[in-house]
């Protein structure tokens, strides 16, 4: 008797803990705790600290005092900040349109059978997976005013008569940065949209063709609505990344010439880390958050509407 009692007790003791895990709430708590600890310690806490920082007068090596919204008031009066805001929206908007358009086109081109399809599909993803900093250097070299292969090609093809000063002129510098971003983003759009296209049954298209619909109409009335949910999610991820982009501008222009190509992230870096005005840098970063938040909420709501339709 005693032996068996002991035995069962021994068997049962660990199972007390396991039994607790039978309760979904406890199990969920256990499963979520590593994530909660890491994200709490390295995101939630620094985020709160960052907010406090933006309300202080902290500089590098000087904790500063609480100054309320003074840093934000200063930003409102700062021309470079507004340039950065405008640039960020312009950059995100233009590149997203191009990435979507070109990505969709490429996806359609890939959505059929041809020899070497697997190889092509594997290769075109390269721009997306290679570290941004490294591939951007290749572009910077291609845009180099004195040694530009692009200038050489355009010249010999007869498009230009004189050198194009890609990174030296404010407007052209922004264009160059956008070109690289689009180059990097198109594969992601194309592959994701291709996956979306492949879930659409070919019969639908064929049926529409039999009904006499032109290719353009078939795309617009059959394919596009079915592709919309996937498109929206791809755009969501792309917009988040583009809006907070740092590496590309940092490598290509460092925000120059004359502060003309700053985005939120690079300007925050410039002020906070380079100039050591920690609190003002934090204010710039924080100013980005509501903009991004609103864009994302709008997109999420739209996705929900599209999906329930």
């Amino acid at each position: 008797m005693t032996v068996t009692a002991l035995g069962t007790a021994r068997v049962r003791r660990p199972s007390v803990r396991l039994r607790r895990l039978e309760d979904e709430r406890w199990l969920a708590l256990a499963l979520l705790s590593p994530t909660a600890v890491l994200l709490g310690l390295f995101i939630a806490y620094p985020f709160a600290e960052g907010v406090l920082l933006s309300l202080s007068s902290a500089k590098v090596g000087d904790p500063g005092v609480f100054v309320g919204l003074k840093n934000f008031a200063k930003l409102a009066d700062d021309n470079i900040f507004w340039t950065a805001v405008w640039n960020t929206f312009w950059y995100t908007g233009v590149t997203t349109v191009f990435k979507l358009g070109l990505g969709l086109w490429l996806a359609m081109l890939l959505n059929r059978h041809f020899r070497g399809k697997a190889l092509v599909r594997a290769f075109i993803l390269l721009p997306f997976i290679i570290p941004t900093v490294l591939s951007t250097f290749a572009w910077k070299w291609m845009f180099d005013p004195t040694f530009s292969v692009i200038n050489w090609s355009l010249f010999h093809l007869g498009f230009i008569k004189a050198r194009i000063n890609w990174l030296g002129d404010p407007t052209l510098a922004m264009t160059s940065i956008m070109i690289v971003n689009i180059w990097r983003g198109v594969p992601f759009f194309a592959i994701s949209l291709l996956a979306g296209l492949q879930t659409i049954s070919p019969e639908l298209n064929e049926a529409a063709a039999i009904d006499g619909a032109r290719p353009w109409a078939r795309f617009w009335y059959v394919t596009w609505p079915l592709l919309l949910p996937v498109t929206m999610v791809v755009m969501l991820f792309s917009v988040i990344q583009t809006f907070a982009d740092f590496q590309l501008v940092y490598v290509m222009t460092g925000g120059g010439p004359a502060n003309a190509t700053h985005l939120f992230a690079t300007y925050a870096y410039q002020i906070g880390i380079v100039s050591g005005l920690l609190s003002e840098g934090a204010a710039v970063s924080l100013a980005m958050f509501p903009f991004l938040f609103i864009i994302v909420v709008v997109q999420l709501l739209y996705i929900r509407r599209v999906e329930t339709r």
Partner: protein
Amino acid sequence: MGQTKRRSVIKLAGSAAAVASTGMAGILATGRTPAYAQTKTVHWLRWVDFVPASDTLMRKELMPQAEKDLGIKINFETVNGNDLQPRTTAAIQSGTGPDLIQAFNNTTYIYGNSVVDLSDLAEDLGKREGGIYKYARSICSDGKMFMSMPWAVIGAMIAYRKSWFDEVGATSFPKTWQEYRDVAKKLKANGHPVGQTLGHTFGDAPTFTYPYLWSWGGKEVEADGKTVAINSKETVESVKFMAGFWKDGCDEGALAWDDTNNNRAFLSQTISATLNGASIYIETLRKPDQYQTEKGTPMNKDILHSPLPAGPAGQYGMHLLQSDMLMKYSKNQDAAKEFLKWIHAEKNFEKWFVSQKGFATPCTAKWEEHKVWTEDPVMAPFKVAARLGQAPGYAGLPNGKAAEALSKYIVTDMYAKAVQGMPAEDAVKWAEGELKKIYSA
């Protein structure tokens, strides 16, 4: 107060977490132990030198010698000049990093709270070597302490084409702005204008506009560092003259050039003179076959350097001043000081100075006599770079506010506006308003 409390809360959380995750702490502990057991290490962070031979000299010869003489280990690190400031900020905030960090210009004032006073070392150096130039002193010392140890100045001088200046009868470089304007007018008529940017570019624009302003007697603020003094008769005069000078003698497309445009324009023979570091000359020395004059002779034989001309109030320059900060968080401050003393000892510093071939000018008077300056006469004008230098923010200190005004290109924009047609008085008034925003805050 609130700040202190938060700090201690972090510390508490930090230590609690460290205890909780003994596994990780264990790994860290084992990873760290050898570092403590070693001889003292001094970590020195510098920019990647413009003259590669100097970095090689440091790595292969000077550092091993210092290690032997001082019995310490030296970790000599070089990074891209643009990355120095981010690294400094991160090091201070995270409390770890290099013991000695190189500072550019008046960034010393940004990090003033986080560095160790080096007055004894610097004053000693000054005494030994005929005095520290005013320029270096104003940047390295805030009057109470030496925030950094003066190292050297990378001079900015006008590089010009001797043959083209000869053609218009200027056998020596113009001494005053008025003369320079006359010569430039003739040069432009010959199709070789002067190239000067007034754009938002870190190097070549302010190193031109600030000394220009001072040479006319203009200044941003009074010596008290509070009263904005830009709106003066002298400033207005200088603005008026600049607009005329520009129209008469400058390449009008240069208004928005960046730091590299003038190098290329000079090398491709579109301009006859431009304010720059020695890099144009170095480039032509490096590739004599590639850069030739229209007559087919090597261009490097046709280049000379000169300081900016003088104005009614004297002759000035503004250059890139480098100094080394000893960081407060450093655990090896004594060893680092010993090392600074060692590297600034004449026989050691001289080796480095000679390897620079004149591209860097030391911050003490004694070096003006060195034979380096007679070896390549083209580089000789750079010997006075540090003497003529003055720091932004004059007549006040080159402190954080001065740095802010500099980074907003207020002085440069004042001239650019006038060149683009704004009446001189209005341009000056605009600059006054912008400066007041900064200095009253």
